[in-house]
C-alpha cells in the first residue's frame, strides 16, 4: 500500500506484456497471476473495475477535449457528479491543465498529453495504478513534472503504483525495482540493494588534454572481456569493469591513464545485470565497425577549429503568426558531433528540417557543405544523409532491397551501387536477406543509418535515433557514431536522452524557438549554474527553467509598466 514499484528493462524485456497480463488483457500461457486478490484469468472484469491503467499511447481521444476525456473516464468508472467537481479541480491543478479544458486532446503537446493521460487514470483513486512507460519520448521537464505529480499522489492518497521505465533516475525514486530482460526477471530489490551489486566495479578516468572522452569511451567499450560498460560523463569517462578484470590491465589499455574508483549507481547495476544476462544467453550484439583499426586515440582536434561545414545565421521560420525558430545562429565544423536538444515543441525538428533542405527558411542565411540552401538545395541534399525519427524503411522489403532502393534514390547505379550496398551491409553487420519489418529496434536503426550513409555523405542528420531503443543497442549506436566522426563525417543529432549529449563535441539547447545555450557539454553544464551542474539532465532543466522564469518576469514587468502607464 502506498508504494511505488518500478519495472525496468530494455525493449522487448516483456514489461508491456507483463502489464497487460496484470490488467487481464492477455492470458498467461501458464502459471497464475493474482491482482488485488483476484485471479486474472478468472475475474479480469473485477480487476479492471478496481485498477487504473495508462498504456504507452495514453489512450486519449484526440478529437475530444480535455474535459470530455476526463468526463468519459469518470462516467465509465461511475464517479458521481459531486465527487467529480472536487476531484477534477485538483487533477487539473496539479497537472496544470486547467487553462486547456476545452482544447481537443489532439492539440496538446506530448508532455501535456501524458499528464492528461495520467489524470484520466486518476478520475478516482484506484486500488492499483499501472503506468506503462509513461515517459517515453517526453522531454526532461515534462518527465520531472510527471514524477512530482506521482509522488504527491502516492503520499496523499496512499496510492499503489507499478510503473515501467527505461530511465534509471525514475527507478531510483521507487521503493522496489524489478529488472527484466527478454521475459526473465533478472533481479529485484530496493534501489539501494540493487545498486550494491555493482560495488567495487565502478571507476572513472579523466582523458589527457586534447583527447576526447568519447574516444576513450570507445576504446573501453570495445574491450568487452574486461569492461562491462563505459559512458562519457562530464568530460570524463565512467565505466564498469568486469569482476575478474584488474585495474592495471585497464590502465594499460588506456596507455597509462590513471583510473579512479567512483561511487556505484543504479544504472551501473542495471547495465551489469543486462550484460551478464546477454552474455549468458550468448546473443550479445557486437558493435558495427567502420574500420578494423578501432578507436584510434587521435589527439589532433580536427573539429571546431576547421572551417565550418554548416553555417546558420539569424535563421527564422514562421508558421503564420507562430515563430517556430527565432533568429538562431551557429556553426558546425567538419567531423564534429553536434547535438540539438530541447523540450517538446522547442523548434528542434523545424531547425533540423531546414538544415536538411526539407523546409525553406522564412529568413536568415543557411549554408550546408559550402552550399547556400536557398539556391542549391538539390546539390546540398546530395551531400547529406538523413535518418528520420521513424526510420523510413519499407517493412516488406528485405534489408538488401531496401538498401538498393535508397542507393538508387541517391543516384548510385551499376557497380558502384553493388559495392556500396555490400560495404554498408558489412559495416553494419546486417543480414541482407532479413525482412526489414521484422528486425528488432536496434537493427532497424542500423539499417536506417546504413541507408543514410550509402552515398557517403559529408554530413549525417539523425532525428531522435535512439528513442525506443534499449540501452545496450544505444551504446552500439554511439560507438558507430564516434567511428564515423573520426572518419570525418559531420553528425547532427537530436535526442531526448540528455546523458547522450555527453558524446557530442558541442550541443545547442533550444526552447520556444530560441537558442538558449551553445557550447561543449562542460560549458553548458557550467552555464546552468552550480545547483544544476550535477548532470546533463539537470543542467538542461536548469537552463530551460531559468530562461522561462526570466521571460515570465520580463512579461510581468512589461505588463506592470503598461498598467502604470494606463493609470
Amino acid at each position: 500500500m502506498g508504494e511505488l514499484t518500478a519495472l525496468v528493462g530494455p525493449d522487448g524485456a516483456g514489461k508491456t506484456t507483463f502489464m497487460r497480463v496484470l490488467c487481464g488483457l492477455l492470458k498467461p500461457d501458464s502459471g497464475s497471476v493474482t491482482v488485488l486478490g483476484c485471479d486474472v484469468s478468472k475475474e479480469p472484469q473485477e480487476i479492471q473495475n478496481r485498477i487504473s491503467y495508462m498504456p504507452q499511447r495514453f489512450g486519449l481521444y484526440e478529437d475530444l477535449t480535455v474535459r470530455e476525456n476526463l468526463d468519459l473516464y469518470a462516467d465509465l468508472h461511475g464517479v458521481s457528479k459531486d465527487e467529480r467537481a472536487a476531484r477534477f479541480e485538483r487533477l487539473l491543478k496539479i497537472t496544470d491543465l486547467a487553462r486547456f479544458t476545452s482544447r481537443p486532446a489532439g492539440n496538446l503537446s506530448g508532455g501535456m498529453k501524458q499528464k492528461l493521460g495520467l489524470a484520466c487514470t486518476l478520475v478516482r483513486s484506484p486500488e492499483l495504478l499501472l503506468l506503462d512507460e509513461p515517459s517515453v519520448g517526453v522531454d526532461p521537464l515534462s518527465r520531472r513534472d510527471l514524477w512530482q505529480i506521482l509522488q504527491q499522489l502516492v503520499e496523499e492518497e496512499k496510492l499503489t503504483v507499478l510503473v515501467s521505465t527505461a530511465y534509471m533516475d525514475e527507478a531510483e525514486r521507487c521503493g522496489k525495482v524489478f529488472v527484466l530482460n527478454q521475459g526473465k526477471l533478472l533481479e529485484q530489490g530496493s534501489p539501494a540493494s540493487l545498486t550494491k551489486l555493482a560495488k567495487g566495479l565502478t571507476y572513472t578516468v579523466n582523458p589527457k588534454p586534447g583527447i576526447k572522452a568519447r574516444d576513450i569511451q570507445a576504446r573501453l567499450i570495445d574491450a568487452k572481456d574486461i569492461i562491462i560498460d563505459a559512458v562519457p560523463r562530464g568530460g570524463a569517462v565512467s565505466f564498469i569493469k568486469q569482476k575478474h578484470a584488474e585495474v592495471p590491465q585497464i590502465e594499460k589499455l588506456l596507455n597509462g591513464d590513471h583510473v579512479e574508483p567512483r561511487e556505484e549507481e543504479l544504472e551501473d547495476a542495471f547495465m551489469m545485470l543486462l550484460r551478464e544476462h546477454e552474455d549468458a544467453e550468448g546473443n550479445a550484439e557486437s558493435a558495427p565497425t567502420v574500420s578494423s583499426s578501432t578507436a584510434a586515440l587521435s589527439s589532433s582536434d580536427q573539429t571546431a577549429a576547421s572551417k565550418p561545414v554548416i553555417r546558420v545565421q539569424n535563421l527564422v521560420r514562421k508558421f503564420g503568426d507562430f515563430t517556430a525558430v527565432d533568429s538562431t545562429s551557429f556553426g558546425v565544423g567538419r567531423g564534429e558531433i553536434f547535438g540539438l536538444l530541447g523540450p517538446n515543441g522547442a523548434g528542434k525538428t523545424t531547425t533540423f528540417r531546414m538544415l536538411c533542405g526539407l523546409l525553406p527558411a522564412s529568413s536568415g542565411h543557411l549554408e550546408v557543405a559550402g552550399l547556400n540552401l536557398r539556391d542549391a538545395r538539390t546539390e546540398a541534399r546530395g551531400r547529406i544523409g538523413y535518418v528520420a525519427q521513424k526510420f523510413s524503411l519499407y517493412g516488406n522489403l528485405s534489408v538488401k532491397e531496401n538498401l538498393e532502393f535508397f542507393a538508387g534514390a541517391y543516384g548510385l547505379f551499376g557497380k558502384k551501387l553493388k559495392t556500396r550496398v555490400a560495404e554498408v551491409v558489412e559495416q553494419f553487420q546486417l543480414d541482407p536477406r532479413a525482412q526489414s519489418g521484422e528486425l528488432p529496434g536496434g537493427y532497424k536503426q542500423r539499417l536506417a543509418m546504413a541507408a543514410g550513409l550509402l552515398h557517403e555523405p559529408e554530413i549525417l542528420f539523425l532525428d531522435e535515433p535512439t528513442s525506443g531503443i534499449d540501452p545496450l543497442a544505444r551504446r552500439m549506436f554511439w560507438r558507430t557514431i564516434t567511428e564515423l566522426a573520426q572518419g570525418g563525417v559531420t553528425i547532427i543529432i537530436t535526442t531526448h536522452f540528455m546523458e547522450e549529449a555527453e558524446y557530442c563535441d558541442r550541443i545547442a539547447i533550444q526552447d520556444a524557438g530560441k537558442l538558449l545555450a551553445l557550447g561543449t557539454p562542460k560549458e553548458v553544464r557550467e552555464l546552468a549554474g552550480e545547483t544544476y551542474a550535477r548532470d546533463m539532465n539537470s543542467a538542461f532543466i536548469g537552463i530551460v527553467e531559468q530562461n522561462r522564469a526570466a521571460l515570465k518576469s520580463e512579461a510581468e514587468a512589461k505588463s506592470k509598466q503598461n498598467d502604470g502607464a494606463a493609470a
Partner: protein
Amino acid sequence: MMVSQFISRLKALIRKETRQMLRDKSNVGVGLALPLVLILLFGYGLSFDVKNSPIAVVLQDNSSAIREVVSGLEGSQYLAPVWVGSMSEAEDLLRAGEVSGIVRIPVDFSVQQGKGNAKIQLIVNGVDSGTASAIEAYVSGAINLALQKRADRLGTATSGAGVTLVQRTWFNEASNSTWFIVPGLIVLIMTLIGAFLTSLLIAREWERGTLESLFVTPVRPLELVISKLAPYMAVGIIDLVFCLLAAKFLFEVPMRGSLLLICFASILYLMVSLLIGLLISGRTKNQFLASQMALILSFMPALMLSGFVFDIRNVPVVIQVISNILPATHFMTLIKTLFLAGNEWSMILKECAILLFYIVLLIVATRKTLVKKLG
C-alpha cells in the same frame, strides 16, 4: 444497481461516439450529403422516360388508312418518326444507332385489315432494355390511339380494328426491366452508412490505442457495440426520412404497403448494415483495410447482386446462391414488395425474420471482436 451502472456507462459511451462523429466533417458528408446526392442522381439521372426518340417508319403499303394510323406516331411527344423508303435502309439506320426502332407497315396491310388480321411490325434496339421497353410501349400506345380514333369515327365497334402489333426486340431477346429505382435506393443508402462510416469505428480505436485503456475500465463489450451503433442509427434514420420524402413527393413512387412497415423493415436492415461495418472493423483492426473490405463485401454486392441493377432470376445459380446469402437481397425484396405490391404478410414475416436472425448473429460476432483480449 447493475442496470443503472450499465445505463450510465452506455450514456457516456454514446455521448463520446456522437461527439466524435459530429466533429469529423467527413462523416456529415458521407452520412447526409452523399445520400442526398444519390437520391437526386439516381432518381433523375436514371430516368427511363424516352423523349423524342428517333423511329424509322417504313411504309410498304401506302393507303390513306395507313397514313392515318401512322400519323399517330407524329403526334407523340416521345417519338420522332423518320420516314425511310426501304426496310434495308431502316435496318442500316438501326445498326448505326441513329434510330432506336423500326415501324414497318407490310405490303398487304390494307388487304389483311379488311380480313381483320392486319399486322404492323415493330423492331426495337434492345441494347438498352429500359429504353427498348419504353419505346415499345409508346409505339403501341400511339398506334392503338390512332386506331381507336379511326374506329370511333368510322363507327366500328371493336377497337384496334383487327390490327395486331407484332413486335420484336433486336440484340436482347429477353428484355426484362423491372427496375424500381427509388425503393432500391433505400437499400443502397442504408448499406452505404454501414460500409463507409461504421467500418472505421473499432479499427480507429485499435489503431490509436484507445481501446487498450477503455478495456481497463468497468466497460463491457456489449456496451461498446451498442454505443457505436446508436449515433449512426440516428444518421441512418434521417437518411431514411430523406428517401421516403423523395419517394413520395419528388418521384411519386406508389407506397402500397404500410408506411410503418416500410420504416420498421428499413430500420432492421439499417442495423444489419451497421453491424456488418462494425464486424469488419473489429476483425481487421485497420481503418484502411476495413473500409476497403466493407466496400467489397457490403456495398458492391448490395449494388450488383441484390437485384438493384440485375434481376437475380436471370443470373447463374452460383450468383443466385450468393445473392440469397446477402441481407441486402432480402431487404430489396421486402422493400420492393412493400412499395409496389402492398402488405404481403407471409413474405414480410419471412424476410423480417431473416433480417432479425442476421442482427442477432452479427451482434454476437461483433461483441466477440471487442472481448477484452489483446494480441
